[in-house]
């Protein structure tokens, strides 16, 4: 769905292979004495989409928010291409939340806002926003009030808005939960095209089918710990951990 001009939007990816695109060590998040996340080390490499799976309350959303710098760890550090994740590097990431956050303005103004926040000159914002909305099939709704869009359209808009910032990493937290199949397919198309254009996708989902359609590798979380990080096919056919096997068979209790 994304045309080839999208590739010109991407900054050069100079990944220092030895560090991975994203990495962290000794990562801990505690709240009121309770450990919510305890990850001795994690490394996410550039390439195909990484799927984050695990039962409810496993810490998937928290992990995404940590890696995106929205939450500070109680202990440990996060690195992007080997350098500490600071405000400058955070601007090379984007995130789509489970509940779409829509600014109370027009559809086009939502995209223009993201472009403005990333320093795109005013003269280019309108045409760029229309181009991105056209890619997502939302061009006819450009002047419509964004809060009046349907659930699927709202989530499509948040994906387009996130991609407007030309992220090197795009985190998506269950972006298609509660959407109809057509909306799911439209959003998956946007994600796959962004991935093909070089954006690293890190996606939280409970949908094994979606994981199979989009993912290259899986990171499985259980009770705040990563129990498995493995290629997708190996994960679905023969998961290494008992927790992952129980999750896939629908028997895992939190």
């Amino acid at each position, binding site marked *: 769905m994304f045309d080839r001009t999208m590739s010109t939007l991407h900054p050069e990816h100079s990944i220092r292979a030895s560090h991975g695109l994203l990495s962290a060590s000794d990562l801990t998040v505690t709240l009121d004495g309770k450990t919510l996340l305890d990850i001795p080390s994690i490394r996410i490499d550039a390439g195909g989409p990484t799927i984050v799976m695990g039962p409810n309350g496993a810490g998937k959303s928290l992990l995404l928010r940590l890696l995106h710098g929205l939450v500070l760890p109680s202990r440990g550090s996060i690195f992007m291409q080997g350098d500490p994740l600071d405000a400058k590097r955070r601007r090379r990431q984007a995130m789509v*939340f489970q509940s779409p956050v829509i600014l109370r303005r027009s559809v086009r103004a939502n995209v223009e806002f993201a472009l403005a926040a990333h320093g795109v000159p005013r003269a280019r914002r309108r045409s760029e926003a229309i181009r991105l909305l056209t890619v997502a099939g939302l061009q006819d709704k450009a002047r419509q009030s964004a809060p009046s869009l349907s659930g699927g359209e709202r989530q499509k808009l948040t994906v387009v808005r996130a991609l407007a910032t030309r992220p090197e990493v795009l985190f998506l937290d269950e972006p298609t939960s509660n959407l109809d199949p057509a909306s799911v397919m439209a959003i998956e198309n946007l994600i796959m095209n962004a991935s093909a254009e070089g954006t690293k996708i890190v996606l939280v989902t409970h949908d094994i089918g979606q994981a199979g359609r989009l993912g290259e590798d899986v990171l499985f979380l259980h009770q705040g710990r990563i129990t498995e990080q493995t290629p997708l096919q190996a994960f679905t056919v023969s998961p290494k951990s008992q927790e992952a096997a129980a999750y896939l068979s629908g028997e895992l209790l939190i």
Partner: protein
Amino acid sequence: MNNFAESFSVSLRLVFLGDAELWAIVLLSLQVSLTAVILACLIGMPFGAMLAVTRFPGRRPLVVTVNALMGLPPVVVGLLVYLMLSNSGPLGVLQLLYTPSAMIIAQLILVAPIIAALTRQTVESLNEEYADQLRSLGVTHLRSVPTLLWDGRFSLATAVLAGFGRAIAEVGAVMIVGGNINHVTRVMTTTIALETSKGNLALALALGAILILIALAVNAAVTLLDAVSRQVSYV
């Protein structure tokens, strides 16, 4: 009863035949209250928004104080402004007492906390929804303020109208600091009080009718804004 009917008929004549004195009073009232509300917006909105998005020691007591100031008794405000502006007061040198400027200052003190408190409430609730998204887009706390004010514009317009309603209907403070001087500081509310005490019910009734019309117009505007905010097609 006849007296009331006669006063009512004279008051209608005053309104519809465009009595110069009556409209001069209405115009001064609007001038004073609108100026006070505009100044209150310039101070109250950024202050309320900053209070909503920032966290610092003492913030909670400050929020409580601003909320409490919404209910300031107008006569007390009038008295304090009088003490400040009187010849022996710290601002006496400005010679503002018994001028429209003094009335604007008094109304500003009454309206600014209303605008600030309602802005804080609106922006804080919007910020709860927006905060992660704005941070994700790299927008800092400070830079998020204009965004939150703009996106909360319909709710904030209601706050402005509430402030205007308070200002235009206020009598105690402007009476004390304005002095109700004919053709200088006489506004609708002070004139109604004076003319009623003098038994000139016609002018008081005419001004009362206009004041009620203004109150109705403000309420209609609030309702209309609410409807517009739901249906508007944005640019």
